[in-house]
């Protein structure tokens, strides 16, 4: 058993090393190198005097050293928590990322929880009433809504609820220049700002969860143990939730991990639509100014996040499905 745990740990470690290496290699493999951008104003060709300066910077950042040495230094820095220095913000990347990360985590986790709750609820509602008009209607709505891109949903919400009706703020994560009288007021303000991004992400993600739960439950309903449960004369609640849903949520756990990667993409869009100060917005800003250290730093953090979600899903699945455990008692 311990051997197996160790093996799993080594697997994750290996994945992490591969991610880190890619993160190290990709900018170095790109044509032009980082300084081509640094000395170029958008669209204009590089000035010649930069040649001298360029060599200075190469030396300064250690880019003239052998690749292996650079790699070792990169790993060492990473281990110390040094993600590099942003040349646009003139600030350590770690500080930048840490400042933005909580906002993204906040809206992503909140919308994940909401979309899973909503998806499970609606999915089981549909599955129990499959092929009735409620199911057909809900199913069609869900399938259509699943195909709408999240930025469209976001824009729609922005125009209708924020700009049109003025119920929610247009942008940001908090109100500026406001003294809060209590922590509750502070929290309410944060929630009011997060409402639209969270709603956008939730709406975009519910459809997938709904479809998965519905299909998975319908499959479970035709299983023999459902006949057994009914033959035993059990109460409907127990049949539905203890016997059916308990089995049907297993694929959801896997989906949770897979979704985390997709969520970051969706968060970038949502944060930019609502000018929400999270990682997604940071990525966009960094791309505009070609700030490689920021991008690299954000990628590492996102990779760790997704990897973490996978580890959690893995452990959760092991707990939920006894068949994946060893056959020991």
């Amino acid at each position, binding site marked *: 058993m311990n051997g197996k745990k160790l093996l799993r740990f080594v697997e994750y470690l290996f994945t992490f090393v591969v991610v880190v290496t890619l993160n190290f290699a990709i900018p170095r493999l790109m044509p032009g190198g980082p300084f081509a951008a640094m000395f170029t104003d958008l669209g204009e060709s590089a000035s010649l005097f930069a040649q001298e300066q360029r060599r200075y910077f190469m030396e300064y950042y250690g880019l003239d050293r052998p690749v292996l040495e650079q790699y070792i230094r990169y790993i060492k820095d990473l281990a110390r928590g040094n993600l590099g220095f942003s040349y646009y913000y003139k600030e350590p990347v770690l500080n930048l990322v840490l400042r933005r990360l909580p906002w993204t985590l906040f809206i992503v986790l909140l919308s994940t929880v909401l979309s899973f709750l909503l998806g499970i609820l609606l999915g089981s509602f549909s599955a129990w009433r499959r092929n009735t008009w409620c199911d057909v209607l809900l199913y069609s709505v869900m399938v259509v809504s699943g195909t709408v891109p999240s930025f469209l949903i976001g824009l729609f919400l922005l125009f209708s609820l924020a700009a049109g009706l003025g119920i929610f703020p247009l942008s940001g994560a908090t109100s500026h220049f406001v003294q809060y009288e209590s922590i509750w007021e502070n929290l309410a303000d944060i929630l009011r700002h997060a409402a639209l991004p969270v709603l956008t992400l939730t709406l975009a993600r519910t459809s997938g969860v709904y479809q998965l739960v519905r299909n998975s439950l319908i499959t479970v309903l035709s*299983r*023999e*143990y459902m*006949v*057994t*449960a*009914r*033959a*035993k*004369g*059990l*109460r409907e609640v*127990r049949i539905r939730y*203890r*016997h059916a849903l*308990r*089995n049907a949520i*297993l694929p959801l756990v896997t989906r949770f991990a897979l979704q985390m990667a997709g969520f970051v993409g969706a968060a970038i869009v949502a944060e930019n639509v609502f000018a929400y100060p999270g990682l997604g917005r940071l990525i966009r800003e960094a791309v505009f100014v070609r700030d490689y250290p920021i991008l690299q730093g954000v990628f590492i953090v996102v990779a760790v996040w997704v990897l973490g979600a996978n580890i959690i899903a893995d452990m959760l699945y092991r707990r*939920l*499905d*006894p*068949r994946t455990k060893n*056959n020991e*008692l």
Partner: protein
Amino acid sequence: MGSVLEVEGLSVVYAGQKREVSALRDVSFDLRPGDTLGIIGESGSGKTTLALSILGLLGAPHRVSGRVTINGKEILSLPEEEKKKLRWRQVAMVFQNSQEVLNPVLKLAEQLAEPIVRHFGLRGAELENRVKALFDLVGLPSFWLDAYPHQLSGGMLQRVLLAMALSCDPQYLIADEPTASLDAICRQEILSKIKSLQAEKGFGLVLISHDLSVVADMAERLMVLYCGEILEMGPTGEVLEGPRHPYTRGLVNSCVGRFPYKDLWGIPGEPARDAGQRCSFVARCTQAIGKCNDERPALRLVASDRQIRCHRGGIALLLECRGVTKTFTLGNHRIQALTDVSVSIKHGETVALVGVSGSGKSTLAQILSGILRPDKGELLFKGRPVNGPWATRQQGGIQLVLQDSSGSVSHRFTVEEVVSEPLIINKIGCPAERKNRVQEALRAVQLPVDEAFLSRRCFALSNGQRQRLAIARALVMEPALLLADEIVSMLDVSTQANLLRLLKGLQNEKGFSMLVITHDLHLARKISERIIVLHAGRIAEEGSVKRVMESSCCIHTQRILEAGLGSPDIKEKPFFVRSPIHPHPFEYRGDMA
């Protein structure tokens, strides 16, 4: 003691995507606590549907009609909540063990406990004790309660399923293939467990299986289900010893466990998808008449406590002779060849007529075929008296094949002349048609059909070929009854085996009956369903091969068996030494011609 489970006219129609499927039609039976009803049928016969509908588990969109009454209370029309309260409490089910009959993510303890919680409201230590007691009951150590279903072996899971079914002390237990996936030892254990628990708790048992040997040991009464219909029902012993419906007979013949010496023959064809308004077995039945295709037969009482569903009243009686007596005179001597012999042969069966030389076997064969006239007694073929050879002259009649084909097949005839002779004599068909039928008959006995062979003279054939030719000559008349008088005794072993398999195969397909006269008891045991022992012109014993061979009560039979099979206990010596084969020095081989 007024408790009884009654099922009346139960019908189930499944509403499918495209069309409706009738899964159960008009099934009725009753069962009292302590009794066992065996239900047997092939897969798709509606066994499981019957079980589920008794539990009231089939509802809209499927249509369930009829009545299921427990202790006078009709349960199908109860509201769902009421049904739920009765399920498992009055009727519980031992499911067939399969991968997912138990919930894979719940511990056994929980799955065992939940009906007890539901129906008795037990909690805590009381509940725990009860669950442990249930495991005790089926002989499982209680630490397994903490396991998940996938951690147990098939035999253990079957025990868990049994324990679970007994958790609420039901009055009736439905066991659906409780041993189908188990090895022989597990099967024996589970079955004896069910039996002893039944004796202890006194529940009524409905035992569903496709395995005759399981049902034969356990059930007092047997129901044969086919395409959702009861085809035959009666006391288990009687049904298995003397099946009345062609389907039941087919099942018995298909079952190797019944009598291991016997050859194995399945029922040709596939079950009908939807029988509609005709007999559901008609497509596979060899004795079907026009009515079978147009009208659905009703389930009729044919004897006390014996019901069958067949327009022809079950397996039809083909030949019946009553009180036949025959005396020959030789000078002043009167030789009593047959005394008061009564024999009946049913459609599609193989009857072996055994007896020592001079016991009257050949005389009986000649009387049955109408060649000899009996002094006394009457003979009916298909209900018509046989006086004179009319039965041998028609198609679908009687044909006799004799021991020695060198005598019965003329040397000078060509192959075609030999086989077409009965057609020509009886003016059947035109020349072209005759030729077709000759070729068909030759093909059936695996002889060549090319012109060269057809025009070959019979003296140029081997003994085996000539014997097959004699059989082809009989088959060309499409007989309903083939009287085979020692037809293989002069052939070598391999030809013998080929020829007999051939005949049995043809019989299985076309459904003619055979009366096989033989000294060879091994052969009789292998190919026939029924055996008649003739001794000194009288019938000494008659019965199913299984019964006669395994528990004969007649001294003459026992002596014949002892001599013929080498040992009084046939189970001890399944192998045997054959009498040496006599060489035939004057045999002409085909290739010498």
